[in-house]
């Protein structure tokens, strides 16, 4: 019953989406607003139907409806309430529903916002959105149907992947998917611009805020993913260059490049072609990411199991890229640049270099991700590309990018004079060098750490100098301090939002550097009452207890942490799920601004007299999360509607 109903709704939604895409396209071509209006109704219908599918599946989860195969494989009678809701999108089929639902939502917002404001571009953008939505609905009907019968009806289900039993599982996928799907809107407008030949600034202005919105969510998704990895996976890291992390990181890099190059087009009418290609590339990479996670082509912790879905995604990726780039070739003449670069020492060239570096980073990540495949295809040799490759190539790129972050926003457009350079960069350079010297004197010997510290201080000072100067200018005309700062942020929100994002990146860079350069770890096997030491901390093994939870069995160790005085009792655990082949580590930690104490329970004696424990003191990691919060706040500030006149 549930299955028939849900599947039926999916089918109707598919038909409606196809109709809507066609109606919008024909309406745009023939100039018949009635058809476009009809497409809008279709889009609304699609959204309502997907919402109903989503609700129905959630209901099936909450009521343990094991006649639905997806429910039976992803939950069992012991799954707690909360995880029965997040379990809805915990695996392939449900994730596609969530994805489609978000696409539908974005389509509705696009209709509401742009129905009247962009008459020429809007119908084509709508047609593109609905066309893409139709593809995902097609996946939901033929390749990965969430509504599929389980015969015979299972008495109990298999259960959710235990790693997904975490509060981060509501926010991480939701934010990530809002980011991924969000890039569909800029792509839709890019397609509209290419089809209509209006490749000027209109589509760009419409797209800019959308891109920041998608970028905001993608950043949030990546950060929460890092946090999840840090506190759930128990290896003490937050980023492993796993193919799927890479898949989410690549569109982030190209979108970041776009957010910068868009400013050159606004100011100097340059880079039209480049911008449109960046938008296409970003969307293509989001599709590539979904393909990677769902095709089983590359081994990854995130890989969903699959069937025909990989081929379907690849076909769609081919269709999208060939069509989009074909349109670019078709509109080649219109996309040519009008402005020219005046000087190498200018904001344009700083931004261009920023773009080159970001694309280089995206390319190396892409190359490293598909290299195992390439190697097997060409040489027949299986290899895996690990963190050393990615770090070695990307660290210099990112350091240069951070340096540019200091230069780009302050250097003059067109041609920077010596006066301009001195005015803006004298103090930052001095302080940066001083910071490097201070670090060296204080005993920091890692060249990379010194360099990062210097660059960070340099960039931080440029931001500070600019902000102080702008505030002073306002104070001089008689404003009070608080309104002056508030007005500055509010009126130039894009500029200062960008600065705040940059500050966030600086903090993240500090955290990454600190955790790489100064973290320490050790492993110890302790008998009850014995202690181990690491970095000035003492860890005493107190006892081991066993707990039976609703859907798993848990062994918890208690360790007293002290550094002279008792700080805390940490309780790392191992969870045994009947459906999993190996136990799941449950990490316990004590977070701090300077360092985190991080404990992972290893092997233990069954009688509880002895336990092996992995001890880590991870330095400065908290700054990654703090930087993440700052970064997202900055992005929010930049999203606010601009108020030129106050």
């Amino acid at each position, binding site marked *: 019953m549930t299955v028939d109903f849900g599947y039926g709704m999916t089918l109707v939604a598919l038909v409606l989406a196809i109709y809507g895409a066609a109606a919008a396209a024909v309406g745009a071509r023939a100039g018949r607003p009635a058809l476009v209006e009809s497409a809008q109704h279709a889009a609304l219908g699609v959204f309502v139907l997907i919402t109903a599918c989503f609700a129905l599946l959630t209901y099936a989860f909450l009521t343990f409806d094991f006649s639905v195969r997806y429910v039976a494989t992803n939950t069992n009678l012991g799954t707690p309430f909360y995880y029965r809701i997040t379990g809805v999108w915990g695996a392939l089929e449900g994730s596609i529903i969530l994805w489609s639902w978000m696409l539908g939502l974005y389509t509705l917002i696009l209709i509401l916002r742009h129905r009247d404001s962009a008459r020429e571009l809007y119908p084509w953008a709508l047609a593109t959105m609905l066309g893409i939505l139709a593809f995902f609905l097609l996946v939901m009907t033929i390749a990965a149907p969430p509504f599929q019968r389980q015969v015979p009806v299972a008495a109990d289900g298999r259960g959710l992947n235990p790693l997904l039993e975490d509060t981060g599982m509501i926010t991480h996928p939701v934010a990530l998917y809002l980011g991924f799907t969000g890039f569909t809107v800029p792509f839709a407008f890019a397609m509209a611009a290419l089809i209509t030949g209006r490749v000027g600034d209109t589509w760009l202005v419409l797209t800019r805020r959308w891109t920041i919105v998608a970028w905001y969510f993608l950043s949030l998704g990546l950060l929460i993913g890092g946090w999840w990895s840090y506190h759930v996976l128990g290896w003490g890291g937050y980023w492993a260059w796993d193919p799927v992390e890479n898949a989410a990181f690549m569109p982030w890099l190209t979108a970041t490049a776009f957010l910068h190059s868009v400013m050159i087009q606004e100011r100097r009418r340059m880079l039209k072609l480049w911008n449109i290609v960046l938008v296409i590339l970003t969307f293509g990479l989001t599709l590539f990411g979904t393909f990677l996670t769902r095709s089983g082509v590359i081994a990854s912790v995130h890989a969903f199991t699959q069937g025909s879905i990989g081929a379907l995604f690849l076909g769609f990726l081919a269709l999208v890229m060939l069509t989009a*780039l074909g349109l670019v070739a078709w509109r080649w003449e219109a996309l040519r640049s009008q402005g020219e670069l005046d000087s190498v020492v200018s904001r344009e060239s700083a931004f261009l270099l920023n773009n080159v570096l970001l694309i280089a980073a995206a390319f190396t990540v892409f190359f490293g991700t598909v290299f195992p495949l390439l190697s097997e295809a060409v040489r027949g040799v*299986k290899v895996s590309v690990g963190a050393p490759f990615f770090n070695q190539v990307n660290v210099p790129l990112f350091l240069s990018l951070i340096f540019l972050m200091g230069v780009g926003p302050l250097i003059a457009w067109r041609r920077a004079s010596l006066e301009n350079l001195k005015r803006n960069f004298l103090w930052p350079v001095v302080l940066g060098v001083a910071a490097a010297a201070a670090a060296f004197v204080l005993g920091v010997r890692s060249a990379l750490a010194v360099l990062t510290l210097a660059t960070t201080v340099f960039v931080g000072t440029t931001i500070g100098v600019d902000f102080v100067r702008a505030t002073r200018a306002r104070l001089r005309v008689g404003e009070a301090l608080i309104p002056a700062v508030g007005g500055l942020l509010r009126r130039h929100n894009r500029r200062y939002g960008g600065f705040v994002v940059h500050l966030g990146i600086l903090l993240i860079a500090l955290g990454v550097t600190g955790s790489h350069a100064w973290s320490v770890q050790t492993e110890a096997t302790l008998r009850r009452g014995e202690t181990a030491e690491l970095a000035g901390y003492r860890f005493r093994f107190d006892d081991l207890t066993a707990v039976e939870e609703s859907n798993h069995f848990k062994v918890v160790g208690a360790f007293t942490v002290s550094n002279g005085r008792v700080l805390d009792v940490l309780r790392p655990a191992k969870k045994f799920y009947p459906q*999993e082949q190996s136990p799941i580590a449950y990490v316990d930690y004590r977070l701090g601004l300077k360092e985190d104490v991080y404990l992972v329970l290893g092997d233990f004696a069954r009688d509880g007299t002895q336990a092996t424990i992995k001890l880590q003191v991870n330095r400065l990691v908290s700054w990654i999360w703090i930087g993440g919060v700052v970064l997202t706040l900055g992005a929010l500030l930049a999203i606010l509607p601009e108020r030129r006149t106050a």
Partner: protein
Amino acid sequence: MRRLWRWLIPLAVLPVLALLAYGFRVDPRDIPSPLIGRPAPAFGLTTFEGTPLSLAAHRGKVVVLNFWASWCQPACYEEAPVLERNWREYRDRGVVVVGVDIQDRREAAEKFVREFGLTFPNAQDLTGAVSVDYGVYGVPETFFLDRQGRIRVKHVGAVTDAVFRANVDRLLAEPGSP
């Protein structure tokens, strides 16, 4: 000329797409085992019936060593009848099938053996030592051992009749141990 070359832009994505398509033909988890050609690590286990089970006892025979678990749906459930059928067919020709159940609960595993009426020796690897020795990555994995006791083939995923016969027939055709 100027008109033509720009059409190369869209075509530039074709090699990438071709590479990804190639990806369907390979299984990233199918990692070649470094144990191929090496002597199979010895072990001593106790079967579910309580009799001792070791490789040494089957020296001189072709051994099909299968790692499975009752929670391994559906692959282990697909291959269990295949293994039983071929065991019955080949047992008189110097072939032995050995099942090793890993990371499992005893009741669930015994139910599995009962359900499929498995008659070849099956034992539980309680400490996980055997699966570590053989570098078992997931279940099911099956090792084909020749009569000298060397690992010759590692098969990942469910064993089919064709896989079983091809490997066993080839190993049987080789000259036996001195």
